[in-house]
């Protein structure tokens, strides 16, 4: 078990390295002169000379080749120094730390919403296959899978905020503020998890060991809770882990639509401002969260599936 976690930690470092390296190079390949963008953002547009720009380029170390810049960033980061925002001059870690709770709240709310809806609906659909409930939920799930976040977000705002006035259009605050963004963000995951729970449950119910359980005379309720669910959850848990990556990705769009002051919006803002230090910081935090969630998934997987537990112990 410990060995397994250690192996995952190494893997985690590799993933984080890969992700940050990619963003670093993509940002530098993107059109537009970063030094100029920073200059504009920091000092305003009008009184900008070529010399100013060159001075900033030197000051920020932007004249060095990309790989040198990356190596420098890496060595600082490894020592716990994430640098300062090129625009505001605030430490990157502080900026992210300040925004992080909002994103965490949103992601957890979205995940709760989707799991609390998706898992029971998926199970009921499987138990009542081809019933009205099944058709309705599968149609809903199909729409949910197809609907892009930005579109769903706008529709929800139109319906619930503009016409019905039930929830605020955007912004950060109490429970009412989080409803629409969490729904928007969670729908895709809910749709996928519903479909998977249903198909996994149907598959499990066909297995011989369910017939054995029936032959024992167990009640249908016990067969579902004691014999079917744990087996059906094994693939679902894996997908939840993978879907969490999409959820993080979704925060970028959803936070922007709803003006939610989280890391996702911070990332978008810093991309527009070419604030490399901040971009790298945001990407790093997303990568780390993603890897940690997948580690947790793997651990729960081990808990669910005794075959894996056995292999890992020996």
């Amino acid at each position, binding site marked *: 078990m410990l060995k397994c976690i250690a192996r995952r930690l190494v893997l985690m470092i590799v993933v984080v390295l890969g992700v940050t390296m990619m963003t670093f190079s993509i940002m530098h390949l993107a059109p537009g002169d970063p030094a100029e963008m920073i200059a504009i953002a920091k000092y305003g547009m009008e009184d900008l000379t070529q010399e100013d720009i060159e001075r900033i380029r030197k000051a920020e170390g932007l004249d060095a080749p990309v790989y040198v810049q990356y190596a420098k960033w890496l060595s600082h980061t490894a020592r716990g120094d994430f640098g300062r925002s090129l625009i505001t001059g605030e430490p990157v870690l502080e900026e992210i730390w300040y925004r992080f709770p909002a994103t965490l709240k949103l992601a957890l709310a979205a995940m709760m919403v989707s799991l609390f809806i998706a898992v029971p609906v998926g199970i009921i659909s499987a138990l009542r296959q081809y019933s009205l409930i099944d058709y309705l939920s599968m149609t809903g799930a199909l729409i949910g899978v197809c609907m892009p976040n930005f579109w769903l977000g706008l529709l929800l705002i139109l319906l619930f905020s503009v016409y019905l006035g039930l929830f605020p259009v955007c912004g950060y605050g109490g429970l009412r503020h989080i409803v629409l963004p969490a729904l928007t963000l969670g729908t895709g995951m809910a749709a996928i998890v519903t479909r998977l729970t249903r198909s996994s449950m149907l598959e499990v119910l066909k297995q011989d060991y369910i017939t*054995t359980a029936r032959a*024992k005379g167990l009640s249908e309720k016990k067969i579902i809770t004691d014999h079917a669910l744990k087996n059906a959850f094994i693939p679902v848990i894996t997908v939840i882990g993978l879907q969490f990556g999409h959820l993080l990705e979704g925060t970028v769009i959803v936070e922007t639509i709803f003006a939610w002051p989280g890391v996702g919006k911070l990332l978008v803002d810093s991309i527009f401002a070419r604030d490399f230090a901040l971009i790298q910081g945001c990407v790093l935090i997303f990568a780390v969260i993603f890897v940690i969630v997948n580690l947790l998934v793997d651990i729960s997987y081990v808990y*669910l599936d005794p*075959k894996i537990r056995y292999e890992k112990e020996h």
Partner: protein
Amino acid sequence: MAALLSIQKLRTIFYTEKGRVKAADDINLDIAEGKTVGLIGETGCGKSVLGLSILRLLPRNAGIEGKICYKGQDILRLSGEQIRRLRGKEIALIPQSPSTSLNPVLKTGVQITEALQLHQKLAREEAWKAAVEMLQSFNLPDPERRVKEYPHQLSGGMKQRILAAIGMAGKPSLIIADEPTKGLDAIIRIQVVEVLHHLTKKTGATMLLITHDLKVAAGLCDEIAVMYAGEIVEHGPAEEVLGHPRHPYTMGLLASSPNNGLKPIRGCSPSLINLPAGCKFHPRCGKAREICAKKHPPLVTKNGSQVRCIFH
């Protein structure tokens, strides 16, 4: 003697995309209390389907018609809750494939004790003790350890005995044992056979024993029914059916067994969707005449045995 189980005009059909699979057709079979009836026949002839029909454990695409009377009540007319009360307690199943019939995420002990707790109303600890004792009586080595393990840690023969223990947990009156000796080596097979023999004789339980092993059938069964393509083609006392087979299929089956020279029956068993007209066995039968392709023979009773062949 009164029949404990009386199957009358049973017909089980699977409705599939490719057509209607007639897995059991016009089955009439009485099992007297305390007797062990063997069910033999080639793979795919419907033995398991017949066994599962009795417990109504078939998937939803199966349609069952006819009558299955157990202690006088028609199982096919019971409500879901009523049939559930019979399962495990009155009629138990020892399922066919040990590798897939145990729940992979539950300890074997849990799977036995839940049946013991349900049917014998034992407390948790008593149930665990009883489970270990049962496995011990089935000659499972180191049962204390095995009940704490998961199915994938056990061999096929061990799983087979776990399944037998689950089946016996409710002290059932009727046991449907679907190839309980499959995949066991000779020594273990003899042990399991002895256990089954012991159980049926000691508790007076009745058993429907589905098997490919004619030796096991000869050793354990009072009567034998031979199935071919969803029908019973011969049924009678074990020594009669095995010693003086009358249906050409039974003769072929006996000749094809490993103890009798392994002579296979020519051809292969028909698709249960497109069955041949007339006698279902005629395309493979050495004695077939023209009439066999036209007339479907009824099951005729003679001297206490039943045969489904035009020449009897």
